[in-house]
């Protein structure tokens, strides 16, 4: 029954998208839309097959994903400890919060010009942009997570004999986890957009670059292909990886997001 | 005021997990004359809230008929005022605006409906809270607003769904006394759902005991009014009626 339900759910999700593709397949030939304005379904599929055959599509996609993964992992590794530290210390949190808010506004795209100056065009600058986009959101959410842990829980742990280390690993970290995951999800949302923008400006490989170069040659089929890949990749990351993770922490424990 | 009559009312649900039909109510027939206070008691899951939701028009019966003043019920309407367990006050409206909501829907001009609302708030001693938002009131105060909001619309029948279940014990007794006072004053037709037996006996003219979707028994409550807790807790007639109903509910 569960499997049947899931299948039905997937079908109701895919149906409207399939209908959209159908409309596209009908409208483009019916109105004789020029390929320089919008490509036909066949042209996009052709571009996709060509990209798969010569491996360029996989290279672009893999490079983009690798940049996001590295930037995100680095950011989370630094951000979570800092966020917990801020959550414990009221003074530190009062002091750093305005700074965090200021920099989280700048997160991502605004760093592109200076990142390319400091790191040159390419990998370093882009990872830096991703790092930025994820880092501040995760710190902020970790802080929020720690501060929403009810005081009685901390008191209970302390009176049951929890030391500093146990308090951290058994109360603070798990208590803040739902918010941390939410932060990663939001941050990645910013990072993914930042990535595409950064790749248009500052590199010669990656999905953003693929799109932007195609524009020079009016290859709308490559552009639309790139957009679909970008959308599908993000949708899979968000829905198949992040959303279940978020649900697993939040719903399992019956916690409500603050 | 109008009469309410339920004629062979039934309700079946399709249970998604079991994959079969589940009967919540069987063949419920009940007549409530105009101006009577009827309480329906029963353990949770006995179907008492389902009856109320059907009378209110929120859900449709699977079989049978609901007549208000001889007219069949089709969906929710202003002739049946509802007081909810969760208060259901509009959080974005002040207390005054909440109570004046029904008159507003009838097109009563603002000055007039504010006056109506103030009158009703005075009835439960909340005139001072008129400009506050529901969120800023205690649970007991919120439910007083919920009660007068329904009354201010002058419904033919007042439907109350465990209205005092989520307030503390002292407040609950005060609210019960206020409700009997208002009822003696205005004599609305009331259907009151509760799982609290003393509450049902204290408030009603007649207590209907419901069990597993069927009416088990109806108990008349001939206690004198006005009813106040200080006197009734010592009253033998009240105690024996309560015990009788309690025995029925526990047997159910």
């Amino acid at each position: 029954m569960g499997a049947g339900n899931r299948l039905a759910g997937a079908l109701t999700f895919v149906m409207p998208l399939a209908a959209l593709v159908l409309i596209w397949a009908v409208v483009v030939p019916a109105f004789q839309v020029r390929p320089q304005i919008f490509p036909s379904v066949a042209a996009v599929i052709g571009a996709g097959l060509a990209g798969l055959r010569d491996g360029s599509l996989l290279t672009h996609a893999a490079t983009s994903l690798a940049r996001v993964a590295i930037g995100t992992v680095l950011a989370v590794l630094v951000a979570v400890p800092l966020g917990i530290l801020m959550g414990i210390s009221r003074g530190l949190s009062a002091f750093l919060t305005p700074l965090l808010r200021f920099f989280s506004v700048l997160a991502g795209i605004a760093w592109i010009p200076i990142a390319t100056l400091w790191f040159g065009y390419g990998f370093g600058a882009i990872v830096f942009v991703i790092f930025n986009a994820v880092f501040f959101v995760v710190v902020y959410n970790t802080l929020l997570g720690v501060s929403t842990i009810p005081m009685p829980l901390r008191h209970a742990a302390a009176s049951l004999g929890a030391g500093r280390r146990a308090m951290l690993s058994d109360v603070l970290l798990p208590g803040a986890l739902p918010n941390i995951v939410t932060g990663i999800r939001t941050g990645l949302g910013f990072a993914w957009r930042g990535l595409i923008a950064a790749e248009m400006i500052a590199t010669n490989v990656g999905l953003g670059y693929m799109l932007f170069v195609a524009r020079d040659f009016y290859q709308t089929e490559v552009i639309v292909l790139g957009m679909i890949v970008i959308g599908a990749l993000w949708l899979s990351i968000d829905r198949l990886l992040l959303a279940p993770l978020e649900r697993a922490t939040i719903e399992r424990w019956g916690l409500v997001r603050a | 005021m109008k009469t309410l009559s339920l004629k062979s009312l039934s309700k079946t649900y399709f249970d998604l997990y079991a994959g079969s039909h589940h009967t919540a109510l069987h063949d419920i027939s009940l007549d409530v004359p105009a101006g009577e206070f009827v309480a329906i008691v029963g353990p949770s899951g006995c179907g008492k809230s389902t009856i109320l939701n059907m009378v209110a028009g929120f859900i449709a019966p699977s079989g049978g008929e609901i007549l208000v003043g001889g007219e069949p019920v089709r969906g929710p309407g202003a002739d049946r005022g509802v007081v909810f367990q969760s208060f259901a006050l509009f959080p974005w409206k002040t207390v005054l605006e909440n109570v004046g909501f029904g008159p507003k829907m009838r097109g009563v001009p603002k000055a007039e409906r504010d006056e109506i609302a103030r009158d009703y708030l005075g009835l439960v001693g909340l005139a001072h809270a008129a400009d506050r938002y529901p969120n800023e009131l205690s649970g007991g105060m919120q439910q007083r607003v919920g009660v007068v909001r329904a009354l201010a619309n002058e419904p033919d029948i007042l439907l109350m769904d465990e209205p005092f279940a989520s307030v503390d014990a002292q407040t609950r007794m005060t609210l019960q006394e206020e409700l009997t006072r208002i009822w003696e004053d205005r004599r609305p037709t009331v259907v009151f759902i509760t799982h609290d037996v003393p509450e049902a006996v204290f408030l009603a003219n007649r207590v209907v005991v419901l069990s597993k979707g069927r009416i088990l028994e109806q108990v008349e409550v001939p206690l004198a009014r006005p009813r106040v807790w200080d006197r009734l807790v010592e009253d033998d007639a009240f105690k024996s009626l309560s015990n009788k109903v309690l025995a029925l509910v526990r047997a159910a």
Partner: protein
Amino acid sequence: MNAALVLWSWCLRTSAKWPVLQTLAPFVPVVALWWAVAAWGPFPPAFFPSPMDVVRAFGSLVYRGILPEYLGDSIARLAAGAAVGMALGIPLGLLIGLSRRAYTALWPILLFFQAIGDIAWLPILIIWFGFGMTTMTVIIVYTVLFPVVLNTVLGVRSVRVELYRAAQSLGATPARVLTEVVIPGALPNVITGLRNGLGYGWRALIAAEMIVGTSGIGFLMFDARRAGSVVEIVLGMIVLGILWYIVDAWVLAPIERATGRRWGLVTQ
């Protein structure tokens, strides 16, 4: 020891009186550190300018009228895009939130187009509309639209069923239920959506200005990058940060609080 406590208590009292101070104080050591690194650090000034250089650049850009003009352009674009985004997004969100059928048909499409993200539209928009105002407006509208729609839907669905029932049994018609229950009930979420949407829109605008712009703060920064002027890049970043801080902290957050808090409705 005692003197330190007195000083600390004075700091607390002052910052309580002027919350602005509390906001600004943390920036003092940061700017001081920045100054110190610029003065004594290993970086050449062209690579790592000092705060004074940035202030001087600010003066000069304001004096030449470039900064006010660009700032005006950016804000006007964001405002126009946000207005159109809201005008489209709120009704769409109400429709999807209220109608089961609209939800089934449109929700997946909405999620997919949201996933494509604003900036990915840039190349094809440039082909369609060229470099200019239209392209940028479309990007902003696109960016603002999704958070507004998604949050409006969330808001509509978060209205408790008893509130609909209460309104109906008090005699409200469907139109009245919409204006008295659905819209106010969804409002805190709509504002949250707008706040998120503007946050995304702001970033998208900067990116769009960098890539296709001929004016605006993003263009200023990217132009400075081409000319190798780090000072103007840093200045651009600071202007961006301050501006958004003001909009978010002094305009959007208070509106959000005013609706959500007083009504006791919690939004995420």
